[in-house]
């Protein structure tokens, strides 16, 4: 290969002839955006994002398709290119229908991920929900109580019935957290110091986010304790002060220095702060009550609303008398009147100059006022406060009527000439608004309204280093969550300022829908919020007890499940929105017709939304080009082009094999997996590598988890085992039985009924029963079966329990058909590896529904055919593999057909080498007259330069396997790279059975059970009774994840760990040893091997492992050829460090293979899985018609 030198963005790079600009750029860490490229498929060039400039040409070139040439000078990021990409993205967004983020999130000033935490709550993931909230919001317990929840205003559930109780749900998880508060991970210390003036929600939030970034923070506040309006402006019955204190304590615990009773302008100046700190954030709020401006206002017992509330909260004496009037219609007025009532006022009036309809207070506040007996006087305006001896005695009121609407849109109150009234009162509270105290703001530019002038996007004031947010800036008077949002965004700007970079907040473009109609939810039943338990009005008259009692766990989950899931499930993975942010798009100018298509979304795993499709065609191409299926295609032309399943049928009725590859490559949310959890919702996940636990290929997967949930399993694009591809089992078979309850407690049968018992009881009971059988009948009356889904380590401990503790000779596995390869080669396993298959010249596929059972192996065979290999299929019926076959045969079910092929080989002059027993076999072969097909197969196979046999161990009889091996021996296609034999096994760890020597034929055990020769059977991780007729012995002990058919008949049932909960080692069908970590928290307290070891302890056995590594070490010592390879955490490697076995001799002492004459027998057999999760998956596929042969 010749090396080509070129320059990309000024960097000298090298590439090989034939490589594209995109490939070379990626190799050199230069990222060129693209939405339609996948290295496994031919370049397509549709999205046009990867355009680059090449010096000397006026055109733009597509990097994905342009091959490099010597001395090319390439630019990947010029203004012309950026402009082109930006327009491309904008054009795509003009026809992208959906909601990137749900309306609740967009409505929240702090962009709290409402849908995310509601979804997590619905799934019972309370801790995760809280963590998510705390990414945006430091005071959830307080805000969950007092927020006027703009999120709920926008919640689309109200189109159906009622909005989700988003605020109450937040409070629910926040309250759980208060006992053991969660603090997000903090960045290392920066040694930068920030002063925050004002300890209210805004200041506390800025402090929280700055602390997380590693800065030192000091908060100054004029009040005795932190919390600001949350603490002093909101009455106890709405927000208990203990809650605020607890949340403040968390921020203190994070390292904030709290300076109370320090007032700006009185106790310190801005200048002094500037000298000591690197940056200052002013969040001083709005603490002065606006005066009425009428005579008598200075009398005693006339209070400003906010001061009244603050004094009451501080337990300062506030004389009010029996008759109290509150002027104003806002929330502060409501708080004041209800507080007055609780302080013992007998008559409390709200005086408001308009009517109830115009009141700015929240509806619920007004309702609760009414419940509490507050009297409303509407359409009155105060004229004069009168009194004697310095105290208020009455207020003279002007009667009003409503005139024309004013600038706020509300009708303006106008006085009715001559109509007045006088109200006798003992005290008056004025709650008509607040203004900013500008004391100490020397040098800070103010607005006309005497608030701090602060930049909307950067929160910077006119003085560098001083930032301001919250109620005190610009328009003032916001809600707490707005102050929190200001504090959060300002903290990002301040963080940038401290590091010397300018960061201005720009709102990213998001696709939203404004055409949602209630009909869209017609399929959902009406379901209102669970009613909230509230303190009854009569119980709250004389106290400040909290009115809202909060949801129970059941209520919270029930309400959260009502969420309509508006936000795009792909938001956190969507490449379109990511690029759109990168290129700061604004598609508004291009807006025009948008598609809104009806959707037939019936596939059990794959959800399609053509309205989000950008027609990159990756799904169509990977399905066709890589998977060999053509389930999807492009339909129609131009703007109306769309991706449709074949012949516009429902996807599940096409040839779709449900592998989900289309989803993996979809750059947007047009194709999504239907998440196998209670309430799907978009969320960031943890990704862990894992090995599939279904068939024996050993495919590598990436499992995405959050909390206790496995959300999805994705292919590992780096994997050489499967080339980044998965089948339906690997992709969707991880949690198909999610609706069934996991077995978590041990069960013991008492009087014909399984009853829950403690672990100790169950293990003791099982051990004693086993011991009794052993003493009464002997060890050979005990049998054990070990799951080949279990890890090698668990299997080893199980085997050791059977052999050395119970002493049974009968250790088997019900899932695997007995192979006869060991009788021929002295070794039961593939002699070659699957990765050789694509490079061989001829493949003889015998007895395998490869696309159905070992899809990834099928793709390797397909790959070989595409490279020119010849495929011959020999199966009981037609299969998908036949499409690639040069010859396909469905012979009668007898090994005679294989003998015919062997006979034809003999006629061609073939003779096996290094074999014992050929003389036994040869005479029979000589007597056989091979048929035409057999002769043809023999000729193709023998004459091929390299040839491999692939067969499925569970689809061929023992004799069939034996004769299959003979074909390889006779032809000489054995023991060389790309020249040999692959035995496909049924389960992820089936190959470990022969490696450990677990090789008793399960048919023998079945026979012994029937003959009453086995009295105790220990079934570990298998469910044979579902598929096999089996007699129950005296004692049946079953260990499994669920209450299987077998477990239901057991005397003792022990729960076991599920595949993703354990770590350990699997050995693939071609002997690749792969270790894997656990990805989910265990569903039970113990690892499988520990449970078995406990049994051993009770039985005084010698099993004494401390950790998994010890087990691995012992396996390595005992099993020849596996030394040093079996350490937990080791990389892939094949046994004996060689991918090809039997290169020179076979695994018998004399080094010769064995042949013997076999009478006629069946060739093909049927064998069903005994592994519960595989059984369930298979059942599901059959039930939904998704099985493809």
């Amino acid at each position: 290969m010749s090396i080509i030198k070129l320059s990309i963005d000024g960097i000298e790079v090298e590439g090989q002839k034939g490589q594209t600009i995109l490939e070379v750029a990626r190799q050199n860490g230069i990222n060129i955006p693209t939405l339609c490229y996948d290295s496994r498929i031919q370049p397509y060039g549709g999205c046009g994002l990867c355009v680059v400039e090449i010096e000397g040409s006026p055109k733009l070139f597509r990097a994905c398709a342009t091959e490099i040439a010597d001395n090319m000078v390439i630019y990947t990021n010029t203004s012309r290119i950026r402009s082109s990409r930006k327009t491309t993205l904008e054009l795509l967004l003009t026809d992208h229908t959906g909601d990137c983020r749900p309306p609740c999130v967009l409505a929240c000033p702090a962009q709290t991920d409402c849908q995310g935490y509601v979804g997590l709550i619905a799934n019972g993931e309370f801790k995760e929900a809280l963590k998510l909230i705390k990414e945006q919001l430091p005071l959830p317990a307080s805000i969950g109580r007092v927020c006027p929840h703009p999120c709920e205003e926008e919640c689309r559930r109200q189109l159906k019935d009622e909005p989700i109780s988003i605020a109450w749900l937040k409070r629910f998880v926040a309250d759980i957290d208060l006992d053991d508060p969660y603090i997000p991970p903090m960045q290392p210390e920066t040694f930068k110091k920030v002063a925050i003036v004002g300890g209210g929600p805004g200041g506390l939030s800025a402090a929280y986010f700055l602390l997380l970034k590693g800065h030192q923070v000091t908060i100054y506040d004029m009040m005795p304790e932190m919390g600001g309006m949350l603490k002093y402006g909101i009455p106890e019955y709405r927000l208990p002060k203990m809650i605020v204190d607890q949340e403040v304590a968390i921020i203190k615990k994070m390292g904030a220095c709290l300076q109370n009773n320090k007032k700006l302008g009185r106790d310190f100046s801005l200048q002094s702060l500037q000298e000591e700190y690197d940056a200052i954030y002013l969040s001083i709020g709005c603490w002065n009550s606006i005066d009425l401006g009428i005579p008598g206002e200075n009398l005693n017992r006339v209070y400003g609303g906010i001061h009244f509330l603050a004094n009451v909260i501080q337990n300062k004496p506030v004389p009010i008398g029996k008759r109290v009037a509150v002027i104003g219609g806002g929330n502060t007025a409501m708080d004041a009147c209800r507080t007055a009532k609780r302080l013992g006022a007998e008559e409390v009036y709200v005086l408001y100059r308009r009517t109830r309809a115009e009141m700015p207070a929240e509806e619920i506040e007004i309702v609760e006022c009414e419940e509490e007996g507050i009297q409303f006087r509407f359409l009155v305006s105060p004229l004069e406060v009168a009194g004697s001896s310095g105290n208020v005695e009455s207020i003279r009121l002007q009667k009003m009527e409503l005139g024309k609407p004013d600038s706020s849109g509300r009708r303006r109150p106008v006085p009715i000439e001559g109509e007045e009234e006088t109200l006798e009162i003992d005290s008056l509270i004025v709650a008509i608004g607040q203004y900013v105290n500008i004391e100490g703001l020397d040098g800070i530019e103010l607005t006309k309204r005497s608030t701090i002038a602060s930049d909307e996007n950067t929160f910077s004031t006119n003085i560098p280093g001083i930032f301001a947010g919250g109620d005190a800036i610009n328009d003032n008077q916001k809600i707490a969550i707005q102050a929190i949002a200001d504090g959060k965004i300002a903290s990002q700007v301040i963080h940038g300022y401290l590091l010397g970079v300018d960061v201005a907040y720009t709102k990213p473009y998001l696709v939203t829908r404004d055409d949602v109609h209630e009909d869209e939810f017609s399929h959902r039943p009406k379901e209102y919020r669970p009613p909230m338990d509230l303190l009854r009005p009569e119980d709250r008259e004389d106290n400040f007890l909290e009115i809202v009692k909060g949801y129970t766990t059941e209520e919270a989950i029930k309400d959260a499940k009502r969420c309509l899931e508006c936000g795009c499930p792909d938001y956190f993975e969507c490449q379109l929105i990511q690029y759109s942010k990168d290129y700061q798009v604004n598609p508004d100018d291009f807006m025009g017709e948008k598609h809104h298509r009806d959707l037939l979304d019936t596939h059990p795993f794959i959800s399609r939304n053509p309205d989000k499709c950008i027609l990159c065609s990756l799904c169509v191409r990977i399905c066709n080009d890589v998977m060999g299926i053509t389930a999807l295609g492009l339909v129609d032309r131009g703007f109306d082009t769309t991706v449709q399943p074949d012949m516009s049928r429902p996807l599940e009725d096409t040839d779709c094999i449900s592998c989900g590859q289309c989803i993996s490559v979809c750059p947007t949310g047009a194709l999504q997996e239907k998440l196998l959890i209670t309430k799907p919702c978009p969320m960031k996940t943890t990704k862990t590598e894992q090995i599939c636990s279904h068939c024996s290929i050993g495919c590598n997967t990436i499992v995405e988890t959050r909390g206790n949930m496995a959300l999805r399993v994705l292919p590992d694009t780096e994997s050489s085992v499967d080339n980044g591809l998965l089948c339906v089992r690997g992709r969707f078979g991880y949690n198909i039985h999610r609706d069934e309850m996991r077995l978590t407690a041990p069960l013991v049968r008492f009087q014909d009924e399984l009853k829950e018992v403690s672990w100790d009881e169950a293990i003791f009971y099982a051990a004693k029963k086993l011991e009794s059988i052993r003493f009464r009948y002997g060890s050979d009356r005990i049998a054990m079966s070990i799951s080949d889904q279990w890890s090698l380590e668990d299997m080893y401990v199980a085997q050791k329990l059977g052999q050395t503790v119970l002493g049974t000779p009968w250790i088997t596995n019900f899932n695997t058909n007995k192979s006869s390869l060991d009788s021929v080669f002295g070794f039961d396993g593939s002699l070659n590896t699957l990765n050789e298959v694509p490079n061989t010249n001829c493949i003889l596929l015998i007895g395998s529904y490869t696309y159905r059972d070992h899809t990834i192996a099928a793709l390797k065979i397909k790959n070989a055919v595409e490279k020119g290999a010849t495929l011959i299929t020999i199966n009981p019926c037609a299969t998908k593999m036949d499409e690639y076959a040069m010859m396909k045969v469905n012979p009668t079910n007898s090994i005679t057909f294989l003998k015919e092929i062997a006979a034809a080989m003999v006629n061609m002059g073939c003779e096996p080498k290094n074999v014992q027993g050929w003389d036994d076999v040869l005479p029979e072969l000589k007597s056989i007259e091979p048929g035409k097909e057999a002769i043809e197969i023999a000729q193709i196979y023998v004459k091929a330069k390299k040839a491999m046999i692939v067969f499925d161990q569970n689809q061929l009889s023992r004799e069939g396997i034996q004769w299959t091996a003979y074909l390889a021996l006779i032809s000489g296609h054995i023991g060389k790279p790309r020249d040999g034999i692959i035995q496909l096994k049924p389960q992820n760890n089936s190959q470990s059975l022969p490696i450990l020597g677990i090789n008793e034929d399960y048919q023998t055990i079945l026979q012994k059970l029937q003959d009453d020769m086995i009295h105790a059977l220990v079934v570990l991780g298998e469910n044979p009774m579902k598929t096999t007729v089996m007699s129950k012995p005296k004692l049946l002990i079953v260990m499994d994840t669920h209450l299987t058919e077998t477990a239901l008949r057991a005397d003792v049932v022990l729960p076991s760990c599920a595949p993703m909960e354990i770590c350990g080692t699997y050995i693939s069908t071609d002997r690749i040893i792969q270790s894997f970590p656990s990805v989910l928290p265990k569903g039970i307290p113990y690892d499988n091997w520990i449970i078995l070891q406990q049994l051993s302890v009770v039985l005084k056995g010698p099993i004494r492992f401390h950790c998994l590594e010890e087990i691995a070490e012992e396996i390595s010592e005992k099993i020849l050829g596996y030394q040093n390879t079996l350490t937990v955490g080791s990389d892939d490697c094949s046994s004996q460090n060689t991918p090809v076995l039997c290169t020179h001799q076979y695994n018998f002492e004399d080094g010769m293979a064995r042949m013997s004459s076999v009478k006629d027998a069946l060739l093909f057999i049927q064998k069903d899985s005994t592994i519960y999760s595989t059984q369930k998956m298979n059942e599901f596929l059959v039930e939904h018609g998704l099985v493809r042969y």
Partner: protein
Amino acid sequence: MKIIIGQGSCGIAAGADKVTVAIQKELESRNHPLEIELAGCCGTCYLEPIVDVVSDNGQKTTFVSVKPEHIAEILDFAIHQKQPKDAVIMGDNDQASLDKQVRIALRNAGVLNPEKIEDYLANDGYKAIQKCLQEMTPQDVIEDVKISGLRGRGGAGFPTWFKWQAANQQKATPKYIVCNGDEGDPGAFMDRSILEGDPHSVIEGMMIGGYAIGANEGIIYVRAEYPLAIKRLEIALKQAREKGILGKNIFGTGFDFDIWIKAGAGAFVCGEETALIASLEGQRGMPRLKPPFPAQKGYWGKPTNINNVETFANIPWILLSGGSAFAALGTEKSKGTKVFALAGKIQRGGLIEIPMGLTLREVIYDIGGGIQDNKAFKAVQMGGPSGGCIPASLLDTPIDYESITATGAIMGSGGMIVMDETTCMVDMARFFLDFTCKESCGKCVQCRVGTKRMLEILERITNGEGKDGDIELLEDLCQKVKDGSLCALGGTAPNPVLTTLQYFRDEYEAHIYEHRCPAHNCKKLLTYTIKEDLCVGCGACAKKCPSDAISGEPKKVHSIHQELCIKCGTCKTVCTFNAIEAL
């Protein structure tokens, strides 16, 4: 003596079938045996149906716009030399316009019977391939085509010899030669006419090409909307096979060659080479990335050469007359002749073939006879939707590849749509964009969505809803669509917009800023008024007005209430007194 009836699609559409039946009937009734032949179109489509009377001494009299009632007179003329009374003989002007042309690609069209191989053979048919096979090496053939200077007549004008050479040099076999008959430009119909009128020329051209590149299999990709072309091709192929001209060991030279027809489903983009190949392979007609070029990896990944129908029709003549004879015609860089389809507001619409280098003025006025109804010439759209419009100020532009490209239009396949003063140029751009937008294959974002958004902007401008900034937005989108599209469909789709913006920007501005359409074409921008002097008060307009915007007493002048008028134009259509004015 014989009678030839023009039976191209244009002739049949104009009533040639009925004329044929009438002649047969008349002859039967007169019991006079007279030979009737059919022929393709000779290009004067505006004169169809056409009947030629050819006397025994070869003298031809052409009757035009023939109706069945003329038949008796024509036969009287043919048999008894009796001068016709109503039947029209082609006028001198029409004849003159034919005489100004030079016919190479159209040499047999309208002359020979396309359904008789004997006619073709009698006129030097299949002599060129015979010469090639017997006297020339493939390299000689390519050399002669090189000398001729023939450039691809499909649109891009790529030198034919170069493509042949590239395919010739490929080592992989088999190779394929494909004839692109997917004529998709609205207004262009020369390929159809050649296939209908002279299929053997195309077959022979393909054979020569096949010999030159080393292909033994030819494929003619014809749009299924051309059933007559397909029928005549099938007849021609059958006859050629029967004569041993197609098949094994042709002319005993050991050269094997055969051709099959693929009927395309009629997608404009399938005229693009790679899309055409995808369609041939049974896949969705979508362009692929180049390289590899079809000459390297084409049909089923094998070397494939694709030429247009007209290109192939030229080939036998070139090989027989010599490349230099062809090169003697035309300009320095654009050799030979080119067929154009004249359409639109032109007097003599139809096909013409002229040497390159004539000016637009000569073509439109001298050959085309000028503008219909003595209106003023405004512009001509060349190259169909991929081309651009050339304004009156550039009428003296010579017609060759370079000069036409310099105007912003393209030669294209030879469509010339002539527009007069009543054509709104914004609406014209909208019309072509509507076409390309619908014909986009949907692969490239810029073409799929960009053309749609451009169309929407043009629609709102013609609807009087244009906004300040729309012109700039259009220009920006034009550039982005050009830059970002993979194939020529998207790459050229903005051309009509760009050229109209270049030459008629004032019309755009009038629509947007003054809410008027200078050509009085865009309905939504018109004001309908009733001319008092012409209105007789018949009330027809008021009856048909869907928004009850017209009132007036019977027999008195009516009036239109502008605030109710929805500008549908119905009143103007129904008024028989031309009393309604739209301005």
